[in-house]
């Protein structure tokens, strides 16, 4: 991926010259150069100037994070330039203003650079006619199967048809029928006759994903997006082509025919599949997650995300989720269980408690656990998850919040080094109480035999595993989609996420019951809301000093790690 998509894209402090242009009669100042899809400074185009002027220019093939090709012709505008006399000096009107010579032909605004004094006209009758004409020709072979199309509701053909379409088709010839339901790859299904050949998908996979797998085959009206036969479209970023497809041609096999998009509630969240922390929107309906889509954040993921992260949501709705608070196998209430645990912790000898937290927990939860840790003189650590990384977005660290665990003091910079010490402590009988959050410690050197020696095994988790089976206390927790909180990504970006769906049964956000537990054990109080909790944590943890829940905004803040 271009450096632009993963780093701050604010232009370098070197001053870029500003030039004045007029958009529909309104004068604005725009930089002469703007970062293009690859982050390189290139001359500002008319469509970018219009965007800065908050004037919408309809377009299909243009995408700010992809190379410009200018093939859809939808963004045609008229424009004028200051007229020059035979002496090459500007011709002036009687009031001294420069005389503008309107160009006889329109230009595609996505590929035409601006120049000083240029006037761009986007609302003239000619421009309207051109848009109508382009749209009509794009719809010639389009099937108009909107009622069963997955794109319906978020389709640019539909949107522009409202603005520039005609209520009746003038096309009396036979439409060319291209193949429907073409299996492009393991996650992508192509409906060839809906395609308007904008080539966004081709450019994405070639220039962003670095996998030149797609092309246009055949000729004329039979043009079709295709892969080479026998070479499926299968890289870890294929589903982004579904997002950028302006029509319903590329569809996600996972989401296809599953839900009308207008029924989805979209919640701002963060992907938890690795330490990159791509910003996502969780699309849910009636407490069931239907899809993740990337949410643009140029400091983290740009407009993209990987397929593995995007499809990693199904576990949240699993039937075997932990739903009940259990004390030695008996179902009980949160109050009863927390009171019993608090009493035991308060009576515990210093050094007899160990904590294994999870780097999948939020900053706030880890901070609350660190409060318990210091009160109890406990030893704590977490578990590393290492996998493969790539050059684009995927991090080798598969925990979303390793840096949060470090900054809150749950683990050392090398994660998991204290686990053998905890195992030895249990073996020697020194550690009598083990608190585990979201990890199966039997897979990390603390086997069932050791767990059997404990007086108290307190486990909070989401799904059952070998550790939860042996627990004396089960505290059912929440997936990130079921609570609010924040993660610190691999680069130190602190990003908050919102609650999309309700947790099943009695499951409760960890920070909520941790707050009760911390209050019972340490007497510390004053953060019953996530905002208050975050702000208290930010005041306490030096790396987070100065942050507030509100200043995190939707795209987060980078802290020094």
């Amino acid at each position, binding site marked *: 991926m271009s450096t632009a998509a993963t780093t701050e894209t604010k232009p370098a402090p070197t001053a870029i010259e500003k030039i004045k242009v007029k958009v529909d009669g309104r004068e604005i100042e725009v930089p002469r150069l703007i970062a293009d899809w690859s982050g390189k400074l290139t001359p500002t185009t008319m469509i970018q100037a219009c965007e800065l002027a908050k004037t919408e220019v309809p377009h299909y093939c243009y995408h700010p994070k992809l190379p410009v090709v200018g093939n859809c012709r939808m963004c045609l505008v008229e424009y004028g330039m200051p007229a020059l006399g035979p002496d090459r000096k500007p011709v002036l009107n009687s009031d001294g203003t420069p005389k503008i010579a309107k160009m006889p032909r329109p230009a595609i605004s996505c590929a035409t650079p601006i120049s000083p004094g240029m006037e761009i006209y986007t609302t003239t009758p000619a421009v309207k006619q051109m848009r109508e004409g382009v749209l009509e020709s794009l719809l010639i072979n389009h099937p108009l199967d909107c009622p069963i199309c997955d794109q319906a509701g978020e389709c640019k053909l539909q949107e522009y048809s409202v603005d520039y379409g005609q209520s009746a088709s003038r096309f009396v010839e036979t439409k060319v029928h291209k193949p429907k339901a073409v299996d492009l790859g393991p996650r992508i299904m192509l409906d060839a006759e809906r395609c308007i050949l904008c080539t966004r998908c081709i450019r994405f996979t070639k220039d962003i994903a670095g996998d*030149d*797998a*797609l*092309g*246009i*085959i*055949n*000729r004329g009206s039979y043009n079709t997006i*295709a*892969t*080479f*036969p*026998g*070479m499926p479209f299968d890289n870890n970023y294929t589903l982004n082509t579904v997002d950028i497809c302006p029509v319903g041609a590329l569809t996600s096999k996972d989401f296809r025919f599953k839900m009308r998009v207008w029924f989805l509630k979209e919640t701002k969240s963060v992907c938890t599949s690795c330490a990159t922390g791509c910003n996502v929107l969780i699309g849910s309906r009636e407490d069931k997650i239907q899809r993740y889509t990337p949410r643009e954040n140029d400091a983290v993921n740009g407009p993209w995300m990987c397929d593995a992260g995007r499809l990693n949501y199904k576990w949240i709705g699993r039937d075997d989720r932990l739903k009940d608070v259990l004390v030695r196998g008996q179902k009980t209430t949160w109050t009863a269980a927390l009171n019993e645990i608090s009493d035991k912790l308060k009576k515990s000898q210093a050094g007899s408690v160990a904590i294994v937290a999870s780097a999948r927990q939020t900053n706030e939860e880890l901070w609350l656990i660190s409060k318990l840790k210091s009160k109890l003189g406990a030893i704590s650590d977490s578990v590393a998850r290492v996998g493969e990384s790539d050059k684009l977005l995927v991090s080798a660290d598969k925990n979303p919040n390793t840096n949060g665990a470090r900054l809150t003091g749950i683990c050392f910079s090398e994660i998991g080094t204290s686990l053998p010490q905890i195992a030895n402590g249990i073996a020697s009988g020194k550690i009598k109480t083990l608190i585990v959050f979201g990890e199966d410690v039997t897979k990390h050197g603390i086997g069932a035999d050791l767990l059997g020696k404990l007086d108290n095994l307190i486990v909070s988790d989401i799904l059952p595993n070998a550790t939860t089976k042996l627990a004396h206390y089960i505290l059912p927790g929440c997936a990130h989609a079921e609570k609010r909180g924040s993660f610190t990504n691999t680069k130190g970006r602190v990003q908050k996420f919102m609650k999309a769906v309700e947790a099943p049964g009695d499951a409760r956000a960890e920070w909520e019951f941790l707050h009760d537990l911390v209050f019972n054990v340490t007497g510390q109080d004053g953060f019953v809301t996530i905002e208050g909790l975050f702000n208290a944590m930010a005041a306490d943890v030096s790396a987070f000093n100065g942050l507030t829940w509100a200043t995190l905004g939707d795209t987060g803040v980078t802290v020094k790690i």
Partner: protein
Amino acid sequence: MNFAATKELEAEVDELITHYPVKRAASLMVLHAIQEQFGWISQEAVQWTAKKLELQPINVFEILTFYPMLRQEPMGKYQIKVCRTLSCALGGAYELREHFCKKFGLDAHKHGAQTTPDGKFTVEFVECLASCGTAPVMMVNDDFYEGVSHAKADEIVGECQ
């Protein structure tokens, strides 16, 4: 990849590549060279070409599917190409093609090139062969025939052995 390029073909292609500033620009000429030798261009040949030109197979496949005269399957020994552009269309090109189809037991209503099961003849329409004054015209492989009546057509076919 079961496509085996002969040493001569490989040498020809290597030489062709030197004609162009970038390897990709040689794509079309390489495909011509392959078709010249094999009569058609298999998917394996596309992969071989892509490797030769440091491209992805889809880049070459795009070109192959664009030009109908680049063949994606084996054609007949005798390729009968009937012109159907305006003068020839008026001069009886459609009837001429139908005549061939009937003669060879092919479906006249089907689009595109059709080959007899014995692999001897391929019949197809092509666009203008640049002899509008002598319509209808056609080609059999590289030989050009003008004013082709049905009787003349039978005679030409008779010579194809």
